[in-house]
């Protein structure tokens, strides 16, 4: 069986920063990623066969791109790309030096890899929102639209509308406009004054000036290009028969209620929903890592100590899986995890890294300040989410379960009080996405229903395989 001393799952900012930190310790490192090239979703590279000039030329991508280059060009690191991790189990022999067994799948088939330690950095995915028409072809995650533009060099539509609470929609709209596409509007649910209240704190503004200036620049470009940007408004419904044709938009009053008499319709063939992100914590949970709930920070996130170690010996986490906070926080955490792993494996010199460990923690503290601002600014809040979700809206796309059908189960079976039972009673979360896109709403509904905390309700049990796989590839 193939072995490694360190396996890094996920080649995004966290995984690459960890790898960079580990390079000097002369370890057998293997990085596994589902994409063809490293970078994660934020630095998702164009295909090898493409030649793209000025790829992600903005300043904010500069550090990330140089990290990407350094790690990619390092000859000591082994790569397993276009490879899906299906699950992690204990090695057969408990006494082995390689206690963790990672089951992977790619076009060549299934491969088990044993390792001494591992870092799980699977990142996050866009949060799915429940509203009438949310299941229509044409409704997409804004992050999904962005990766088509920056990696595949494709503008997937003619008239783009973005709606949500997260500023990513500004960046993606800007990228589309720069590339020559048409954006018909950007809809933010927050009040304009709410956004700018934050900027009244000069200390925050100065310390994170680079990021604010970048966002301000994007905003100005969009305004100059005449793209309507609206605040205190929200999508209400996606309309269309076989596919998206238009989106109904309504205003939100000062108390957070949607004003039904203000509804208007915007014609578009692509809606990017942009309400934030959820941590992809299922792989770590599948292997027994402990978790906690964060409503604004990504749902179920993985607990860790200051060296990014989970409770499971030799298993580390970094990046969005610990709480969605962006690429820079992810990279800082990846660095800490790298240091933690070097120490765990008892590499000579790892003790001397204490000053770097402390410095990285200070930097992390600084970065988290901005991340926290962004987190609370972008959090849609339960009131908005529950107003959008009508009884007829699809809660679970895979199993086609409406919110009304789900709530009916809770009426029939008032004793349901955890996620596992709710899944069993309703089939919500049993389909191909394995509950990734319905669990957030479901948790919120259950929590309200039973007056219980999200922690009491718990997540769906994460199972092998964490992504569906054809039986023929498993048994080959």
């Amino acid at each position: 069986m193939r072995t490694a001393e360190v396996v890094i799952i996920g080649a995004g900012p966290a995984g690459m920063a960890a790898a960079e930190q580990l390079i000097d310790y002369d370890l057998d490192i293997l990085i596994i990623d589902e994409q063809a090239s490293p970078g994660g979703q934020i630095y998702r590279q164009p295909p090898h066969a493409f030649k793209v000039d000025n790829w992600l030329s903005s300043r904010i991508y500069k550090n990330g791109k140089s990290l990407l280059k350094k790690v990619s060009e390092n000859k000591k690191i082994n790569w397993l790309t276009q490879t899906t991790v299906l699950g992690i189990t204990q090695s057969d022999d408990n006494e082995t030096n390689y206690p963790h067994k990672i089951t992977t799948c790619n076009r060549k088939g299934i491969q088990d890899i044993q390792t001494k330690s591992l870092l799980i950095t699977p990142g996050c995915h866009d949060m799915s929102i429940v509203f009438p028409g949310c299941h229509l072809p044409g409704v997409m995650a804004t992050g999904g639209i962005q990766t088509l533009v920056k990696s595949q060099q494709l503008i997937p539509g003619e008239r783009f509308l973005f709606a949500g609470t997260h500023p990513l929609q500004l960046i993606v709209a800007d990228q589309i406009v720069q590339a020559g596409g048409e954006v018909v509007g950007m809809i933010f649910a927050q009040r304009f004054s709410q956004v700018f209240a934050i900027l009244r704190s000069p200390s925050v503004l100065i310390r994170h000036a680079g990021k604010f200036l970048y966002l301000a620049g994007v905003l100005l470009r969009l305004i100059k290009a005449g793209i309507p940007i609206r605040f205190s408004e929200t999508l209400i419904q996606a309309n269309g028969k076989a596919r998206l044709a238009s989106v109904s938009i309504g205003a939100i009053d000062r108390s957070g209620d949607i004003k039904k008499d203000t509804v208007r319709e915007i014609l578009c063939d692509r809606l990017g929903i942009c309400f934030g992100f959820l941590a992809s914590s299922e792989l770590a949970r599948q292997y027994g890592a402990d978790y906690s709930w964060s409503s604004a920070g990504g749902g179920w996130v993985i607990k860790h100590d200051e060296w990014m170690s989970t409770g499971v010996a030799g298993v580390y986490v970094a990046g969005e899986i610990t709480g969605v906070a962006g690429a820079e926080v992810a990279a800082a955490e990846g660095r800490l995890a790298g240091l933690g792993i070097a120490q765990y494996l008892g590499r000579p010199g790892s003790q001397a890294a204490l000053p770097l460990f402390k410095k990285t923690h200070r930097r992390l503290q600084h970065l988290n300040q901005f991340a926290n601002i962004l987190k609370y600014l972008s959090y849609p809040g339960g009131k908005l989410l529950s107003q959008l979700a009508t009884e007829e809206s699809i809660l679970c796309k895979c199993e086609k379960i409406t919110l009304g059908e789900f709530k009916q189960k809770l009426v029939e079976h008032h004793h349901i009080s955890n996620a596992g039972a709710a899944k069993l009673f309703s089939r919500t979360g049993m389909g191909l996405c394995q509950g990734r896109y319905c669990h957030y709403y479901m948790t919120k509904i259950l929590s309200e229903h039973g007056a219980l905390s999200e922690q009491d309700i718990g997540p769906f049990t994460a199972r092998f395989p964490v992504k569906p796989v054809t039986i023929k590839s498993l048994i080959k």
Partner: protein
Amino acid sequence: MQKYDVAVIGGGLVGCASAYYLSQSGADVILLERGQINEGASGRNAGSLHFQLEQRLVKHRQELAEALEHYVALTQIAIDHWRNIEQELNCDLEVVMEGGFMVAETDDETRLLEEKSAIEKAQGLTVELLERKDIHKLAPYLSDKVQAALFCPHEGHCNPRLLTPAYARGAAANKVEILTNKNVTGLYKKQGRWQIKFTNNQINKNGDAVIAEMVLNAAGVWANEVGLLASVDLPLLPVGLIMNVTEKIPKVIHHLIQHVGRKLSMKQVNDGNVLIGGGWLAKLQHQDGKWHSERPALIHTDTVKENLRTAASIVPFVRDLHLIRTWTGMTALAPDQLPILGAVDKASGFYIAAGGSAFTYGPTYARLISELILTSSTSFPIAPYAASRFQ
């Protein structure tokens, strides 16, 4: 302290069904469940209605000869029960009884089927030995490797997600007090009655207690732990099993598929998913050398692959389907693989119903144990399943 006629411990199939039958006859019942209704093996098993002797029982046919004959007789009762269960509970439980195959691939396995069918036929169970061309007519999706099969027209499946909840609804309608997230911590006999102490598992850990004339231990894999609270040592061993589920597909497999020589059980549920299992083991988690009942059993990926390989060799088209999930469940088995059903001699008023194919036979066990609790007699003899057989 609240007083009841019967306290049922366990909110699985046997517990909820017993609570239902007891309350149908007017008994005042409380049901205490440590987690959620239908959360254990009752909701996690694959819902097979298998009436032929299973592979694991066929293996021990010599030493179990007498018991097996009795078991096949019990099967007849269970079949009748399943035929009427949706009417009885007045709801759709996705009961499908279009028949099931026990397949054989080798001459030895075919001989085993012949021997098995003799036992079954002698007790009146309808089974028919089919050869390849007949099998192909009924089930063209089966591999040509299948040389013979024993067909039982009553077999099929029911949706385990629906059955126990239906009983729980029925019980609740009969005013059964159903309490979930309640961990039973003590069972004491006081002045001829049972005092049942329990704590809250969710929110706070507050304790409470109730009094009942009788206690039914229907705690499934936890039945041994519950028994020990009443100083009753039940020889039930926890077993972890895996189950695999594919994505939904249009209806292809109409039957229950089992294998006489290999561990395999397959079916396609009404929702369209194909379920694949058959008794492949998951690893129980231990702490301080003791089984840890709070932690789920763990899969071994080689076991998953072997289970799926077996399935694909018998029903080849499943190769192209996605495996969505492999889940594990825990069940309790007695050393002779048969149920433990009846009163417990040394603890009067304490009853047990656990072990032994408790999905297929669960409704029947529940009905029989309820009869015993209420009338001290049963409409079908259950003496062979008494806990005392192990003494």
